[in-house]
């Protein structure tokens, strides 16, 4: 009964695929004409076949490598670069969303000049550059250092270009500004080791981990890399004979996503972490749990931490004494421990580093690298100096690129005022932001993906960013603008004409290091690899144990304080113009398209406010208004507000969404004492989430590591059916039977998979109202459940797991479809034929997992966002149902490749978008007919942890989950 099928199935798929291309092409025609003149066919561009370019991600300082997927000249997806040692092939949600920055419809299309009336006037590039040249010339004539460059660090080469540019105009006022700059850590490093660069961490080498407020799975330093390490750290393994997982503790005011993946969350007031850290050190010193050759003078150490006797600390911070001593014990006794800090005071960082040092973990779980240090951002003092100079009227012309200081700088810095003092402000960038609004000349700059650039995230790693496509708009690389401007000047010209030339020159200079290969081979090679990744060597540390400033205990905590943290997706605010990120629910709060003031029910009661009440939060620096989110995910007495929202410009998707928490912070601070009052207004916080209580259903399951060690499978007390119960004779899947294994323990909830799915499968966003109306379209979502109150003692802090179509063998959605739009392929896929769907929506009614999505309206991608659409995937119209397809287009691609190359399909050859993106490799896709496949082996290796969602319904899902692991409380 199989003969007929393959043909029919294939024709179905083809139908879908071709229709997909057809639907996508009209959208991209104008661009296509511009990008690829098919009149003269380009032999490098084979229609229908993607090409891949290695490049680097520039969405945050972590500097992961990326690979751009190009179709017909358009980059349609960003993925991690496997060759890159940092990301190792994974890319976070923010990185992937860079595409929406590239294709953002609100990007500046032409140079514009602001008239005296403040209105912008479009001008040609020539006019603009002439104007720029003239004003700069004038400025430089006026004297030395009258020209300033103020921008984000955009790589070593760019740095040189910027400096050269300034040089030409007789200035040295270059400021490389990052809003989130890890300054406290650098200060700590400086104090202890006399160096300002950041250490490298190896969580996977540790047995115990304490994070003093460092959200290392979200935004802290290098999330993708650290998440990968953390998942290894949490993988059950034999340690000293016992099966166990790394013990992690989070000390901080909010149960962040990172905290939720730890064993314990010690809720302290913001700023109290240092106190606890020192106290832990105190315990270590007292107990002599310190390595003999740590190089520390015990006496000095113990009197330094004298004020931090656990009892005292406990009194100050409210953290129980035994908690602190236990922390000390686990940390001291651990074979490999790591303490990290993410607070805004260097004290905690210092304490953490000493903790690592005294336990002899330097070189093991934490290390400094030899060789050229990472490029540095300007120190806060340098930044202040620059701003003061502007305010002081010492600057005639300021060139701002890549940074949005007006938005991210605290009110106290008075940046806006400073810019007003500058007669001529040039802004170059993509989507005009708050800073651009203050500039008199704004220039459309290339998106990083359109320009040549390089990165140096750490010693031994140079990322090479090559343009992956033709410019979408009439823009230029910032570097080129600077060089052109420099070129106009009469005085000494910079050595390169363009950024491209500069980058190539710089890199060929590196070639000498690269043994053997000649320069051109080297050039080809680094472009293919996406950079130069050399062996990383530890640098010898000269520990400065000279009695350091004995820390003073933090003042008694304030009545009410506000804690502002970088939003996992919006970061410092640069993500806010990307609908994908706006519509991605923050993993813990599950809110979209808004900011919120998260507070404990107790706090809410004290303040007399309820969910969705808009409150005004006032600090000494400023005041903001935000709706209340009542949740026990923050410490009582603390209001947590995410950064990144509240733009007053920056395009249609960012403008007037939420509130800007930077406004209530001091420079470099993340918290402040605050007062809050109800404003009487209310604003619905919008979330796609219904109930947060799993009601004991087997959706996201967890078991304790102790149970795993004992080999006990958690039993659900439902009555068992005895005797045969199978109604139908099972179907046969002669060829492949696709399946998936998802390790819930490895899943951090970072939602990279969700964004990957949006990008791969042309999933439209629906906006705040849409989400509120229950029309969110995500095919894969992160389920968030709170443990039931009674079970909380013996459960993970939070249940987080991806939920997507389970591709059921007995899919309830299939037989109810009247027109076979939903049916089962003979490769075990739960097929959904959009063209055939009439929209009865019965399938979704009958889907126990509720993973199907209906197109309530005609989806829209404002040009040029439509250029990002994946031609391999149908764009669905109004009135049809859609859902996860296991990336059937990728499966087809893989199978066709294998066929054309006349070979068997290799395991792991087909990688779904979600799997590809996952930093912790929680998702494995493969053939369940092949017991040797990685996917099946993973199930076998963790047999005790296998479970299927809602298994009692006999839907026979193709997805097997591996239970989350937690550590039973009250166990050492």
């Amino acid at each position, binding site marked *: 009964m199989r003969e007929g099928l393959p043909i029919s199935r294939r024709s179905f798929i083809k139908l879908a695929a071709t229709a997909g291309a057809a639907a996508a092409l009209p959208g991209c025609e104008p661009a296509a004409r511009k990008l690829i003149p098919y009149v003269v066919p380009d032999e490098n561009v084979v229609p229908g076949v993607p090409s891949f370019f290695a490049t680097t991600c520039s969405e945050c300082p972590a500097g992961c490598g990326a690979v751009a997927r190009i179709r017909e000249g358009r980059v349609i997806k960003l993925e991690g670069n496997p060759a890159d040692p940092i990301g190792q092939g994974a890319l976070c949600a923010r990185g992937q969303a860079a595409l929406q920055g590239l294709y953002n419809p609100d990007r500046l299309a032409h140079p514009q000049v602001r008239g005296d009336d403040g209105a912008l006037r479009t001008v040609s590039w020539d006019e603009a550059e002439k104007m720029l040249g003239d004003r700069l010339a004038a400025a430089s004539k006026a004297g030395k250092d009258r020209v300033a460059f103020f921008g984000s660090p955009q790589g070593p080469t760019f740095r040189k270009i910027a400096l050269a540019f300034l040089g030409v105009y007789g200035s040295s006022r270059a400021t490389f500004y990052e809003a989130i700059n890890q300054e406290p850590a650098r200060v700590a490093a400086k104090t202890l080791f006399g160096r300002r660069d950041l250490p490298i961490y190896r969580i996977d080498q540790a047995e115990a981990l304490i994070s003093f407020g460092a959200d290392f799975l979200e935004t802290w330093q290098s999330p993708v890399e650290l998440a990968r390490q953390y998942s290894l750290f949490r993988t059950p393994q034999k340690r000293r004979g016992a099966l166990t997982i790394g013990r992690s503790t989070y000390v901080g005011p909010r149960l962040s996503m990172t905290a939720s993946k730890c064993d314990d969350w010690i809720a302290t007031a913001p700023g109290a972490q240092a106190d606890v850290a020192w106290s832990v050190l105190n315990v270590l010193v007292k107990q002599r749990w310190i390595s003999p050759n740590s190089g520390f003078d015990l006496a000095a150490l113990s009197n330094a931490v004298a004020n931090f006797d656990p009892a005292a600390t406990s009194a100050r911070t409210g953290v129980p004494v035994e908690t602190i001593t236990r922390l000390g014990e686990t940390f001291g006794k651990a074979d490999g421990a790591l303490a990290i800090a993410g607070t805004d005071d260097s004290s905690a960082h210092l304490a953490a580093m000493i903790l690592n040092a005294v336990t002899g973990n330097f070189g093991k779980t934490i290390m400094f690298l030899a060789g050229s240090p990472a490029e540095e951002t300007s120190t806060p003092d340098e930044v202040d100096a620059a701003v003061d100079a502007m305010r002081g009227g010492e600057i005639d012309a300021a060139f701002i690129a890549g940074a949005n200081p007006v938005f991210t700088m605290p009110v106290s810095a008075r940046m806006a005022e400073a810019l007003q003092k500058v007669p001529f402000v040039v802004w170059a960038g993509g989507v005009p932001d708050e800073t651009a609004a203050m500039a008199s000349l704004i220039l459309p700059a290339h998106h990083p993906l359109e320009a040549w650039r390089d990165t140096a995230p750490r010693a031994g790693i140079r990322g090479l960013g090559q343009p992956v496509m033709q410019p979408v708009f009439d823009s230029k690389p910032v570097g080129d603008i600077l060089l052109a401007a420099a070129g106009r000047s009469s005085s000494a010209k910079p050595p390169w004409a363009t950024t491209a030339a500069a980058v190539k020159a710089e890199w060929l200079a590196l070639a000498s290091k690269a043994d053997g290969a000649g320069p051109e081979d080297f050039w080809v090679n680094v472009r293919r690899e996406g950079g130069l990744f050399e062996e990383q060597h530890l640098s010898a540390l000269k520990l400065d144990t000279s009695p350091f400033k004995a820390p003073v205990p933090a003042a008694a905590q304030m009545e009410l304080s506000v804690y502002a943290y970088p939003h996992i997706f919006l970061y410092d605010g640069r993500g806010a113009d990307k609908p994908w990120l706006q519509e991605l629910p923050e993993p813990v709060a599950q809110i979209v398209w808004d900011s919120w003031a998260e507070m404990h029910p107790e706090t809410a009661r004290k303040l007399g406010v309820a969910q969705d009440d808009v409150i005004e939060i006032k600090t000494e620096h400023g005041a903001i208004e935000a709706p209340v989110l009542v949740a026990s995910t923050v410490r009582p007495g603390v209001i947590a507000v995410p950064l990144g929202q509240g733009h007053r410009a920056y395009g249609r998707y960012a403008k007037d969404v939420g509130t800007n928490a930077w406004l209530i912070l001091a420079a470099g601070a993340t918290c402040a004492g605050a007062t809050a009052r109800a404003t009487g207004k209310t604003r619905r916080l919008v979330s796609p989430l219904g109930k947060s209580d799993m009601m004991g259903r087997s959706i996201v399951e967890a078991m304790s590591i102790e149970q795993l060690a004992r080999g006990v499978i958690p039993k659900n007390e439902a009555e068992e059916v005895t005797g*045969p119960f199978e*109604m139908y004779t099972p179907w046969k899947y002669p060829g492949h039977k696709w399946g998936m294994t998802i390790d819930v323990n490895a899943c951090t909830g970072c939602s990279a998979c969700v964004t990957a799915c949006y990008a791969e499968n042309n999933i439209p966003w629906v906006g705040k109202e849409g989400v509120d109306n229950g029309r969110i379209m995500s095919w894969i979502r992160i389920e968030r459940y709170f443990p039931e109150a009674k079970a909380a003692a013996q459960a993970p802090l939070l249940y987080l797991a991806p939920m997507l179509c389970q591709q059921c063998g007995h899919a309830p959605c299939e037989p109810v479809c009247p027109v076979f739009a939903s049916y089962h392929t003979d490769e075990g896929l739960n097929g959904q034929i959009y063209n055939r769907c009439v929209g009865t929506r019965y399938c979704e009614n009958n889907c126990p997992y509720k993973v199907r999505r209906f197109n309530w309206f005609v989806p829209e991608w404002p040009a040029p966002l439509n250029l990002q659409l994946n031609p391999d995937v149908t764009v669905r119209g109004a009135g049809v149902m859609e859902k996860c397809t296991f990336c059937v287009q990728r499966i087809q691609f893989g199978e066709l490749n294998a066929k054309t190359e006349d070979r068997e399909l290799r395991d792991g050859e087909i990688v779904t978008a979600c799997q590809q993106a996952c930093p912790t490799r929680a998702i494995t896709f493969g053939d369940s007919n092949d017991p040797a496949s990685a996917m099946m082996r993973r199930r076998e290796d963790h047999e005790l942890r296998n479970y299927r969602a809602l298994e009692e*319904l006999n839907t026979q899902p193709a997805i097997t989950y591996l239970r989350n692991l937690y550590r039973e409380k009250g166990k050492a």
Partner: protein
Amino acid sequence: MSTHLQKAHRERGAMKPRAVESVVGTSTRAVAGAMIVLGATAFMLALSRGGAAIAWQAYLVNLLFFLGVAQGALVASASFYLTQAKWGGSTPYRLGEAFAPFLWVGFFLFFGLYFGRSLIFPWVTHPIAQKAAWLNTPFLFARDGIGLGVMAAASYAFIRVSRGADARAWTIATDDIQLPPHSIRVRAPLVAVLFAVVYTLIAFDLVMSLAPVWRSTLFGWYFFAGCFWSGLTAMALTAVVLRSRLGENNLFTNSTVLHDFGKMVFAFSVFWIYLLFAQYIVIWYGDLPVETFFVVQRVHHLPWSPLSAACLVLIWLIPFTVLMSVRAKKTPVILGTVAGLGLVGMWLERYVLVVPSLSLDAVPFGPTQFLISIGFLGAFLVSAMPGLNRVAQAATSGEPVGDDPE
């Protein structure tokens, strides 16, 4: 109802029936008695000889079946009043009430189950935490005992007025649209409602609870619809038998009553299969193990599948195909045979409902179970005898009956 009318009816109703000798000869009585003895001894032997489980299964199956027949027939009589049926004068009513005495017999036999409870109800030996509140011995016997008791009492209260002169007068006033006497108007609906409630309870407690994991909301309804049909079928069969025994001139020969019974056997057999299908398709489609196993084990799984098929044939296929034609309905032999087979089928159906829950892989049907069934049949016949005489009387009293336009 105007008084003079009533008087007229009473006179007509009071017509002396032609004296007939009791329809059940002494021989029949003897045989029936012997059957009881046989059954009882077989049961006792089984209990003493370690065949207890098998004996109790047979006990339960027969109890359910015969109780169902007796009660179903009585409810048929009540529902004739509710639909103001006058196609057979008072005879169909007497026929329906004929088996009533077994209601009390069954009521007492029910408590016999108490001694076999551990062999019948799995939850007695392995209590189920969540269901303990409902599935526990005292409560079950209390509620079902009371239910059956009330049911029997109500039935008798109904019979008393139904046999009264007023009711009879009404049944034979064929050209009138007046409602039945008030006493009937109160009791007939009561009996019908009680039937639905009590027999749902019986279905859940004495059949469903044998497979405690399983549930089906329609099951109660399905069960008592089966009882009702078996009651009608038994009435039809009796009518056919009496027809031949009552000599030349009786209601069954010179009216269309048999035809009407034929129609009802046909119609309610279709209704029964409808209720069966309504459950099957939902469970088949839903594919939830907690529901499917019960069906799979009986319908898709040897040794039970052929028996289930047999039920289908006997209860639905044969009546449906055969009784479709008017001639068949009117031919006593055919109607009788179909009805007889139908009753066998309904017995088998009860057997298939009950036993697989207790012995999944074997059909424990042997002489013991056969003899016990015989015993029950005997008891049933004995308790039906007085009623049958009344039927004979009514059938031979030459009442006027409504005409039957096809």
